[in-house]
């Protein structure tokens, strides 16, 4: 029996140890806060490995959420995952973080034929994607104001924050999902499925979806005085 370590910091620091054959969750830790990834992540990983007598070098691999998500937290998880992979000499597999929300929708049962998931992108925007009820990604990920989304069932913390706006649009934000964030335990099934299909997930580049916002200042555009 070999296990995967799953890490996602696109929202909160979330870590799980997953049985690679059954997909069962062996252990998990998720921070209740969205701003303590640097403080908590490695301690969570240590706790999981120690509790389950799992040696890092014996892992089947590391699955990491590549976002989209707020940049600083996202990088904390990615640099840690890459470093673990380097030291333990195990493969690191990158998976889009919104898959975790879609998986949770389907896992909860009675998923609508098509639906949207949305996470908090700050600056009055959400990261969103559209799925069908078998978990196929139909559109996204994108970053946009909630008011520009299609009027359909909508899940995730992004649906909660903008519930009022979304209802005005005629969309159906699903209240039971208003505290759902990208959780490591829900990221794993999609990753295992993709890996089972032979997909190459070796790209762990972050999905920023936004530029750095840096503007070339006017004084740098002038050649001379």
């Amino acid at each position, binding site marked *: 029996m070999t296990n995967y370590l799953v890490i996602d910091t696109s929202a909160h620091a979330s870590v799980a140890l997953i049985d690679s054959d059954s997909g069962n969750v062996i252990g998990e830790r998720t921070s209740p806060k969205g701003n303590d*990834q640097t403080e908590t992540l*490695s301690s969570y990983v240590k706790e999981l490995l120690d509790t389950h007598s799992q040696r890092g070098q014996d892992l089947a691999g590391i699955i990491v959420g590549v976002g989209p998500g707020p*940049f600083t937290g996202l990088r904390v998880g990615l*640099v840690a*995952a890459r*470093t673990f992979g380097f*030291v333990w000499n195990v493969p690191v597999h990158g998976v889009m973080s919104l898959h975790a929300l879609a998986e949770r929708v389907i896992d909860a049962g009675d998923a609508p034929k098509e639906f949207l998931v949305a996470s908090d992108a700050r600056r009055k925007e959400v990261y969103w994607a559209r799925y069908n009820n078998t978990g196929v990604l139909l559109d996204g990920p994108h970053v946009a104001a909630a008011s520009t989304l299609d009027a359909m069932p909508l899940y995730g913390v992004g649906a909660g924050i903008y519930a009022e706006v979304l209802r005005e649009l005629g969309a159906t934000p699903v209240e039971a999902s208003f505290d759902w964030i990208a959780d490591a335990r829900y990221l794993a099934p999609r990753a295992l499925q993709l890996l089972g299909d032979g997909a190459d997930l070796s790209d762990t580049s972050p999905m920023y979806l936004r530029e*750095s916002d840096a503007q070339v200042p006017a004084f*740098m555009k002038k050649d001379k*005085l």
Partner: protein
Amino acid sequence: MSLTEPIVLGIESSCDETGVGIVRGNKLLANAVSSSMDEHVRFGGVIPEIAARAHLEAFVPTLQQALDTAKLTLDDIDAIAVTSGPGLAGALMVGVSAAKALALATDKPLYGINHLVAHVGVGVLEGTVLPPTFGALLVSGGHTEILKVTSLTNDVQLLGSTIDDAAGEAYDKTARLLGLGYPGGPAIEKAAKEGDRKAFRFPRGLALPKFVGTADNPGKNRHNFSFSGLKTAVARCVEHFQANGEEIPVADIAASFQEAVVDVITSKAVRAAKEHGLKTLLLGGGVAANTRLRELLAARCASAGINLVVPPFALCTDNGGMVAALGAQLVADGVAPSGLDFATDSSQPVTNIVLQSGN
């Protein structure tokens, strides 16, 4: 591990350099640095988000490079040290997260240490022997500080610092005004070589008696710096020539600006050292590359009977070797490691040399 000569790996990511250095005791074994400076040039200054993105991509390759250079594997490392602050928060977090992952995965002790004290700690490398108590002058794009170092591992005091811009920032902003590009330090220095440093008399910040007081009755800003007035004076000077439709004497302004900066820095540093009985002064930070600063500081230290120590330039700019050097001192002194739970501290005071767990 050898307590006297521990092998320590140091990680630096507080600004735009991703650094991984390795030391054995006081010997530097590797100092790999990847800089995102080129990506900041068109913005005329460091863009924190661009720096943080670059740290993520550079970390593992820089780590690999340092290990290759030192001809060591991670098994050979006794401890890991990382800059926990001060610096750019988002940039610090990449290095600290990487360091924690590395410490956990290799099961080594981790030290979260002060970047400014690391600039001083580099002074113990390359065979330099520092006295028990000495002063340090740090001048870079991000800092301008005078420190009193009684013990590198447990007693560092801030004697003075800038109350507005860092010296390097003043160079960058003035270089922009003069159309000299980025980074400002080398650009101003080059232009200044062709100019007359006495052409203009620009203000020396916080040099008036009301700020400095006397040795017996020191003013609050006796050892502090300010460069915002200087920047404004240079801007007015440039505007004056523009308004009159005259050509701007770029070289003379650059030379006079630089003289104002190095004059006030060196005179304040030497005065602080004298008044605190410090017989040795270490110069650190990227602006240590400035020839005029070193020249004037050497002259003033010589006449005050102060021994000036300037580490090699590659160790003055931000790098992982300096973090490893301070880390090795901490290990040798038996200081407790920081654990895995500490947070970055973008304004970490120099009195906080190493973070303790539970902080």
